[in-house]
């Protein structure tokens, strides 16, 4: 769908690495260029016309994001540099002060590095305990395993909405219901979820959420931190300086601005915000439900075609999102990726930043295909053909 909107697709590539980053529609590029050619100026500053335009576009994007995830108020949306930045603000700016020694955070072995390492650092710094909710035979979380992992020390559960290797979508609504009954706060890493499915933070009752612009057709270097207002209000800023202070005096008195401005110290990534705004408009125009349905159908086709090849191991056959992890039997994932690249097929090989997942996966490196709505059955047919000829792999890559 909508392939003409993506200039990169005219370069004769098959782009299957959407979990790493997505291609950008022309409207996103145009929004960024327009900022530089028509109304370059700082946000929240000058009293001249272009500055007012930028201000209104910048705050307008905040509103678009509020609507996109159905937050209650615009002030619950903070612009960051990406999911990693958002997760670190959540962990260092809030939980470092909220948690006490021996309090427990629940994660799983299939989380991305940015939902693991910040908690490890906190474990080192203040003595919290990072615990893993066991995964089932499909490497997925179950409500039962979550319930059984809760102790009276559990204060937070932090999970990907959709995991980035296995690609399972978590039952966040059910998890947060149980979590809140036990006074446990819910953190969601939506980097892989937000681009592919409609997330409603009120419906799912999510306390904190992080996602990236570039994985949802927006520019790199821009991301979002969402938190319920009362929680966001308690986050201690990591960046002090311009834009985030209300006043300060020579004797050291500092008064900070309101939320969310307080958490956006320094000149923000304005081109990023405006580009993200265009990406959100673009997605809303296609409709997240349409995207979700199309990608699920496409995945089913991909899995059914891959399953016909007896020399392919698929590691997450039963999931229902946009991600498929596989290997050619006896071939290292990176060699497969280099072979596919000979045919301009872009896939990711590796552990996909889920370096502790091999504890349950029995294989540490896989080839990952992560689909987008601009991928087609014809592209999958081409992939299958190339894989069918992979007996020539050494001749091709050596």
């Amino acid at each position: 769908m909508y392939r003409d909107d993506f200039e990169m697709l005219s370069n004769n590539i098959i782009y299957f690495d959407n979990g790493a980053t997505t291609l950008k529609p022309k409207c996103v590029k145009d929004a960024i260029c327009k900022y530089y050619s028509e109304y370059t100026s700082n946000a929240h500053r000058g009293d001249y016309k272009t500055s007012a335009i930028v201000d209104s576009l910048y705050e307008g994007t905040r509103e678009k994001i509020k609507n996109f995830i159905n937050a209650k108020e615009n002030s619950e949306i903070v612009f960051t540099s990406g999911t990693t930045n958002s997760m670190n603000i959540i962990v260092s700016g809030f939980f470092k002060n909220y948690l006490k020694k021996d309090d427990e955070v629940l994660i799983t072995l299939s989380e991305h590095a940015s939902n693991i390492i910040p908690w490890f650092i906190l474990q080192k710094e203040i003595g919290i305990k990072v615990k893993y909710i066991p995964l089932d035979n499909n490497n997925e979380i179950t409500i039962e395993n979550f319930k059984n992992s809760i102790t009276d020390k559990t204060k937070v559960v932090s999970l990907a909405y959709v995991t980035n290797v296995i690609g399972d979508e978590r039952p966040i609504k059910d998890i947060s219901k149980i979590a809140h009954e036990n006074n446990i706060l819910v953190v969601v890493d939506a980097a892989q979820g937000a681009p592919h499915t409609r997330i409603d933070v009120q419906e799912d009752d999510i306390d904190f959420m992080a996602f990236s612009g570039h994985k949802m057709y927006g520019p790199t270097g821009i991301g979002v931190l969402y938190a319920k207002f009362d929680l966001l209000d308690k986050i201690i800023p990591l960046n002090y300086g311009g834009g985030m202070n209300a006043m300060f005096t020579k004797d050291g008195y500092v008064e900070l601005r309101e939320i969310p401005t307080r958490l956006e110290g320094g000149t923000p990534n304005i081109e990023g915000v405006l580009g993200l705004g265009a990406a959100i408009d673009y997605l809303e125009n296609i409709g997240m439900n349409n995207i979700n349905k199309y990608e699920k159908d496409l995945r089913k086709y991909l899995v059914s075609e891959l399953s016909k090849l007896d020399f392919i191991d698929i590691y997450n056959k039963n999931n229902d999102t946009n991600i498929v992890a596989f290997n050619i039997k006896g071939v290292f994932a990176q060699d497969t990726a280099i072979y596919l690249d000979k045919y301009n097929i872009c896939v990711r090989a590796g552990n996909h930043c889920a370096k502790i997942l091999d504890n349950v996966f029995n294989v540490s490196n896989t080839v990952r295909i992560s689909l987008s709505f601009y991928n087609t059955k014809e592209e999958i047919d081409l992939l299958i053909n190339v894989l069918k000829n992979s007996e020539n792999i050494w001749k091709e890559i050596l």
Partner: protein
Amino acid sequence: MDKDIKRSIILDNYQNSNMKHTSDDSYVKINTRNVSCIDNLDIYLKIRNNIIIDASFEGEACVISISSTNILINMLIGKTCKEGINIINNYLKMINEEEYDKDLLEDLLVFDDTSKQPSRIKCATLSANGIKEYLEKENHS
């Protein structure tokens, strides 16, 4: 060297790596995890009186990485640390398209056009760099 011969040497060292096994505590273990890709090999070296008397490697990596490690380790056994460093330096020069001594490199010459595939340079130099760093750093007398 003919492309087919090169390929068969690379593949043979990948599919039948005679040096791919772990070794005991009397060996030093060097991990050469490649930060930019996913190769992860452990190198085992036994050095006495400045001579590399035995070596092996174990781990998961791509064809270039495994094959180059197997060839290099076969060549290093029996050499002094200084000779080993010299072989590796010449190998690295070849990979980086600098002038090098062909006579020192034996089967490692199969990687002489690696620079044409920039993404493979790290794979081809993973073990060489790890071993070189160890040989240069320690006093092995």
